[in-house]
């Protein structure tokens, strides 16, 4: 069996300037902090970032005084383009957009999930009524089925997906507790290369098979040491 265990620095070294990465979580909850820290340390630039949102800046009362989630990458100027559903919580994003250093593409949250899932599940696209008659339909095809219009949403495929799990085994099967699941599963499906940061890594066979929520076939690299967030 392949050894998938690496340090955070080793794992994120696959990310190069200009790459498209996806980062799991929702406003930082469920984001792989140790991978983001390593990516900040690595200093990779001109990233296109797929994430639900912009994370939380350290001055947000729900962070305990440190940047939470992808806010780290944005604060460090590593992102040229963010593809997200909502960026209102992190003021660095509006600042970057005003300064012309950050481009922002907004996608409805459900469509963002389906676009990632489509990439991971080999679909050529999905049809959705969400966004019809709104600025979201700009540049997109409308397909009519029996008199009803749908927007065609195309797959969105990151080169590297950064995922957070609570538990993982050395094969890469992983489990996320409570509300840390958001976007982690679909991004694990979608990523060409998938890195999981887990709080705890178990030996293969140590836990019941149904202990794990997602198959390790998606996972290329595992990093142990993700910590519970300090409240």
């Amino acid at each position: 069996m392949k050894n998938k265990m690496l340090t955070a620095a080793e794992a994120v070294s696959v990310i190069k300037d200009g790459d498209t990465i996806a980062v799991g979580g929702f406003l930082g909850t469920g984001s792989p902090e140790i991978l983001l820290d390593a990516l900040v340390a690595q200093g990779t630039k001109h990233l296109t970032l797929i994430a639900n949102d912009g994370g939380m800046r350290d001055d947000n009362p729900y962070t305990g005084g440190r940047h939470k989630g992808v806010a780290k990458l944005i604060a460090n100027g590593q992102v040229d383009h963010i593809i997200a559903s909502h960026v209102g919580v992190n003021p660095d994003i509006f600042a970057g957009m005003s300064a012309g250093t950050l481009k922002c593409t907004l996608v409805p949250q459900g469509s963002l999930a389906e676009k990632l899932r489509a990439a991971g599940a080999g679909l050529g696209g999905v049809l959705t009524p969400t966004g019809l008659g709104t600025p979201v339909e700009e540049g997109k095809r409308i397909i009519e089925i029996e008199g009803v219009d749908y927007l065609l949403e195309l797959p969105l495929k990151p080169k590297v997906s950064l995922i957070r799990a609570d538990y993982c085994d050395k094969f890469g099967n992983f489990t996320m507790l409570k509300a840390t699941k958001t976007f982690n599963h679909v991004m694990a499906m979608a990523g060409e290369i998938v890195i999981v940061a887990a709080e705890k890594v178990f030996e293969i066979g140590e836990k019941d098979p149904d202990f794990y929520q997602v198959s390790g076939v998606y996972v290329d690299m595992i990093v142990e040491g993700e910590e519970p967030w300090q409240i």
Partner: protein
Amino acid sequence: MADIRARIAKRAAKEFKDGDIANLGIGLPTMIPDFLPEGVSIVLHSENGFTGLAGTPEPGEEDYRVIDSGGKWVTTAPYVNFFGAEESFAIIRGGHLDMTVLGAMQVDEEANLANWIIPGKNVAGMGGAMDLVVGAKKVVIAMTHTQKGNHKIMKKCTLPLTAKKVVDMIITEMCVMEFIDGKLTLTEIHPDYTLEDVKAATEAEFAVSPNLKVMEEE
């Protein structure tokens, strides 16, 4: 103003029946659970990934794994179930929510909704709002009837839309309006206002229900 908001939330609360599954927008709609009638309990969906949103934790009791879609730490009901974004939005978009109650900047005669772009402000993003109003079985807009004297119930929305032809009901401090056979119809009016008051505060054309009722406070 607090009275007005409570009045709107109270009236919205009456739309629910026991066991309904709902997603409540930020602001005024989050007051609704406090006003649910006796014997009615509802299941709150949080679009970041669970059914069974409850309240606010005591300081020191926060669970760092449990936030709501605004990023705040919250508590959960005993029947809570957590899931990822693909499932959360399958629930929203697949018609599994009985109702969503949201605020709005504008609603128009064609049941179009505009509630995500504030003119002159940065565009924060639609988040899950476009999905919610397209997917939920019933879309209730709970809002003040006007905004600083400007109409909000329009002939045609002037702001970029959140979605087309999705609104089922509008609840304001003045009245309740419903789309009946596609036609905006006044169904309840608050005792503080006359029909003329409502007409003056509403740009949209609307029908008056033959069964027009009083919008009751209790």
